[in-house]
């Protein structure tokens, strides 16, 4: 396909020469491969763009108008390095029960799903990261909120009462 006929059709000499092997090679597959690789590199370089997760925090400078949430519609979730604690109610209340789960599909996600189903749109998640939590744990938890379709969540700092509750439960 790619070769160009070189003999101009002249038959001047009349002498028959030994046929020379053509030095031209068919470059089509090579070009094909070249463009395939170009396409590959072009696509992979543009697809590596990072994605973002938007996080909105409340305005600190304004006099906060506190939005009321019912205790029964709130779940406090405490992410730690390998596990997640959660409880309902006040940490100072003796009747408050602290439970432990993990980050797997069957862990915190099912709990959030169940609560959401039971309570409805008013379900609020309070996130108080423990001292040992990694940034990844926080993002994972925010991700779980997005997966379970919970738009109402608040990020708070951990308080001594909650820490005491974890210590007391021994989980």
């Amino acid at each position, binding site marked *: 396909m790619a070769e160009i006929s070189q003999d101009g059709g002249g038959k001047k000499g009349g002498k028959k020469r030994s046929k020379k092997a053509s030095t031209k090679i068919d470059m089509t597959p090579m070009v094909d491969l070249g463009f395939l690789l170009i396409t590959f590199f072009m696509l992979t370089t543009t697809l590596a763009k990072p994605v973002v997760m938007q996080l909105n925090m409340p305005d600190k400078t304004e006099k906060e108008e506190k939005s009321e949430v019912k205790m029964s519609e709130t779940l406090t979730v405490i992410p730690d390095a390998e596990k997640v604690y959660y409880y309902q109610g006040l940490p100072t209340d003796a009747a408050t029960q602290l439970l432990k789960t993990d980050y797997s599909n069957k862990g915190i996600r099912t709990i959030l799903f169940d609560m959401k189903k039971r309570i409805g749109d008013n379900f609020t998640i309070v996130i108080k990261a423990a001292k040992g939590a990694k*940034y*990844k744990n926080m993002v994972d938890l925010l991700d779980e909120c997005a997966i379970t379709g919970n738009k109402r969540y608040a990020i708070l700092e951990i308080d001594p009462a909650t820490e005491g509750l974890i210590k007391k439960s021994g989980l």
Partner: protein
Amino acid sequence: MPKVKAKRQSVSLDMTAMCDVAFLLLTFFMLTAKFKPEEAVTITPPSSISEKPLPTKDGILTVSVGPDGAIFLGTDDATAKSAMLERMANRMGIAITPQMQKNYNASELVGYPAGAMRQVLGMTPSDVKAKGLMKGIPCDSANNELFLWVSYAKIANPALKVAIKGDANSNYKVFNQVVGTLQEQNINTFQLITSPEGKPQ
């Protein structure tokens, strides 16, 4: 007169030139894909199901948190970047030489205490990295330089959006500190940079 025969055109064409172009482009893409600007630290962001791309329209101010909790700052806005240096140098009483300016422009990130600024800007970014001088910007209540850097960048370009690129294994405490510092400047919306991950059913 002899008849002029219409010359037959050959249907096959020479592909050498096309091949050349193809491989030239291939080489170009391979090399550019490799030679990404050197990062001061390697940060592996956590993954999330978010599919939103990073909004780059008004410029981005990126606060990076390394695995050991060191804080770095970078921006893609050239005006904000030079304004940051100018104001910080002013504050520290450092006269910026053309050489220092060049080194500053060559580095992607700011990540050193302001006290070490003269020393860091005196050498090339790769030397700085080799000597381990990218220690991070101090961000505690006693000496909050991150606050200054961010406010200088915000003065130059108030529309700057703040992105936080934290390493998956960095401590949450540092993230909390960064968010707290930025909230003091009434920055309440953050773009957390994550790597994409499949959405569960």
